[in-house]
């Protein structure tokens, strides 16, 4: 043993270093293992990782301006946006040439709507100009500045040109600034006026409500998991069906059931009125607000909290509690000092599951959230399917992803990720 340390690497029987011959021997095994997981790996790569990467890339991608308006972008390079003056004839000439080409290919409205995200109104300028510019002779006609102003006065606004200039690079941070309620001012990024800050509020609300939902899931789920774990396994399995029952019901049905329960003419209000606890003309507003969203989502996500807590608690031997009591601890001390610390991994696993599910939840807030109870995901969905501002949606999604990763990292620092058990 000791002489190998002196004489360098250990050699196999045929004289090759042992490490190398071990690696060779294991290579075949590794290849075989890789082949086994290859189908899944490729499937995940193609259907999940690549689309997500592509989507995230859209949050900084901005090729459309320089691709559609190449001459204008070059001509605008010399223009000083801070001067407050409209650019010169050269820029307008370049724009006319670009627009004519774009209009022929019918893509001028796309760049219009892209720039419209940044400065509302540009879209219509491009649409109108696109219609006229087809008849212009780019070489012979002129001056183009007047011709553009004739189409629409808006072309004389330096802000329009500044927007074009700002968004001419192929990559942009504009979507991210937008997602963070900021805009590009003359002096670099600045906060939007307070009444226009919508995403910050939404992010805050999403985080806050996810935390509240996670906390209420812990409070409601812990006793249930405790009882399940301490019952004889026959009874526990029977009760487990009740916990799992929601999984067999469609999410839409469950959410709609909450609508029936919580609305002003709903079951709960009717009962309260019938009991005389609430006046008929002062029925409680429990839906289309944060309360409704929290109640419905707590109910829907509760099984995700109970299951990991249950499986962790099942592994805690009841003799620990007995031992603590025999050592002189009261019921509470025995629970708090001995049982609870051992159940923390279950709480951790459940909380991470519930919190991450909650932070990206869409259907339930959409149905019962009204305007005050919607999440950031609803806004992302709006930009994906209604406003078609995919770049902004991607930026919001990226921020959400980063926030989750930061929280995950913080959890790892505080509790330790190895302190999470699913059973």
């Amino acid at each position, binding site marked *: 043993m000791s002489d190998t340390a002196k004489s360098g690497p250990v050699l196999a029987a045929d004289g090759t270093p042992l490490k190398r011959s071990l690696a060779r021997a294991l290579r075949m095994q590794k290849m075989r293992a890789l082949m086994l997981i290859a189908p899944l790996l490729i499937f995940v790569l193609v259907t999940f990782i690549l689309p997500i990467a592509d989507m995230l890339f859209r949050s900084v991608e901005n090729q459309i301006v320089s691709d559609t308006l190449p001459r204008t972008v070059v001509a605008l390079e010399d223009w000083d946006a801070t001067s407050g003056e409209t650019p010169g004839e050269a820029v307008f000439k370049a724009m006319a040439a670009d627009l004519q080409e774009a209009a022929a290919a019918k893509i001028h409205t796309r760049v219009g709507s892209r720039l419209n995200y940044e400065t509302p109104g540009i879209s219509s300028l491009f649409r109108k100009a696109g219609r006229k510019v087809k008849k212009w002779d780019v070489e012979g006609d002129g001056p183009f500045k007047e011709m553009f102003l004739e189409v629409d006065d808006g072309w004389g606004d330096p802000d329009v040109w500044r927007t074009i200039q700002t968004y001419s690079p192929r990559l942009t941070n504009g979507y991210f600034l937008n997602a963070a309620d900021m805009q590009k001012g003359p002096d670099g990024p600045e906060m939007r006026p307070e009444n226009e800050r919508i995403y910050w509020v939404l992010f805050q609300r999403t985080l806050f409500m996810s935390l509240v939902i996670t906390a209420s899931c812990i409070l409601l789920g812990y006793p249930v998991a405790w009882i399940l774990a301490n019952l004889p396994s026959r009874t526990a399995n029977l009760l487990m069906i009740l916990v799992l029952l929601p999984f067999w019901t469609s999410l839409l049905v469950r959410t709609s059931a909450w609508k029936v329960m919580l609305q002003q003419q709903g079951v709960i209000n009717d009962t309260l009125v019938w009991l005389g606890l609430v006046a008929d003309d002062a029925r409680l507003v429990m839906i289309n607000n944060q309360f409704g969203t929290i109640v419905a989502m707590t109910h829907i996500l509760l099984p995700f909290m109970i299951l990991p807590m249950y499986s962790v608690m099942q592994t805690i031997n009841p003799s620990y509690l*007995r*031992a*603590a*009591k*025999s*050592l002189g601890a*009261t*019921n509470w*001390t025995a629970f708090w000092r001995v049982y609870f610390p*051992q159940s923390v991994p279950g709480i951790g696993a459940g909380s991470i599951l519930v919190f991450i599910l909650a932070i990206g939840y869409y259907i339930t807030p959409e149905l019962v959230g009204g305007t005050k109870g919607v999440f950031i995901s609803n806004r992302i969905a709006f930009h994906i399917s209604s406003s078609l501002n995919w770049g902004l949606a991607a930026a919001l999604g990226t921020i959400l992803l980063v926030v989750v990763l930061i929280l995950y990292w913080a959890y790892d620092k505080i509790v330790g990720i190895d302190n999470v058990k699913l059973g």
Partner: protein
Amino acid sequence: MANKTSNDAFVEFERVQKSYDGETLVVKDLNLTMPKGEFLTMLGPSGSGKTTCLMMLAGFETATHGDIRLDGVSINNIPPHKRGIGMVFQNYALFPHMTIAENLSFPLEVRKMGKSEREEKVKRALDMVEMGSFGGRRPAQLSGGQQQRVALARALVFEPELVLMDEPLGALDKQLREKMQFEITHLAHELGITTVYVTHDQTEALTMSDRVAVFDDGRIQQLAPPDELYEQPQNSFVAQFIGENNTLEGVIKDIKDGRALVQLDGGELIDCKPINVSKPGERTRVSIRPERVEYNKDRLQEGVHTLKAEVLEFIYMGDIFRTRLRVAGNEDFIIKTRNAPDQVRLQPGQQIEIGWLPDDCRALDA
């Protein structure tokens, strides 16, 4: 125990019964008195009620009927944490999220003891079980035997007067178990603590205890010091359960002068000591220890009945020889002889005659 008075009773069970389902009794009419400082073992097969008794004493189960007293005070309604009884569990139940020192410190903390006093007591308790350098480790980093020692130290660190042990050595290998048996008895006697020890291992019970209570069917079948238990079993369950035992079945022919004449089912006559048989005509099960059977004619008493036997098997076991015989139709009749230079090694097929002192052959209930 000659001068035993009622003051000596430290632990008392009086007419204790326990039922879990309201239909069957797990513990039936248990009466038991233990003086201070005694090491008492509850021995019995699983389901005999011994662990239930321990749990009732610890306070984790309530007696359905009867009174349990500790130092003269009825503890039926005192919760476990106020009983001040140390307990060692079968699986040790060391708290996995605490270090060894924290585990030991726990009972002192809940008693609101000061930090320096705590540290001192923890150190002393760990030194006592020779685990002084392991204070900073976690239970999972220790071997089974080490965990066992720590569990013992934790049960003793708050200086209880009564310590309960529920099959604490069950998970250890044979060698370690024997070592720990010795250490636990020493420690218990040294510290003068009263110990109730539950096990299903009869060797453990015999080697460790001052007295052994043999449980079966919810009752104490016999409560006696180990030697008495082994040599003078009071009924056939105890005779069968403790140690190896040969049984022959028959009918009492005659009882007089402390001797019983038994006619075996094959017709042979033997002399026995009547234990719990009273009148001729009663069926009986006769019990003889393998090492008390004699086949050397010169050493047999004059005039006692002997039995013919055929040697079926000879097993060499090192320190002893174990020979299986056919006696009166029983093919599992064992005799054990010491491996000595002058000892005869019986050969299979050999016909011999065996006998014993009438006192060693006990006529018990059938």
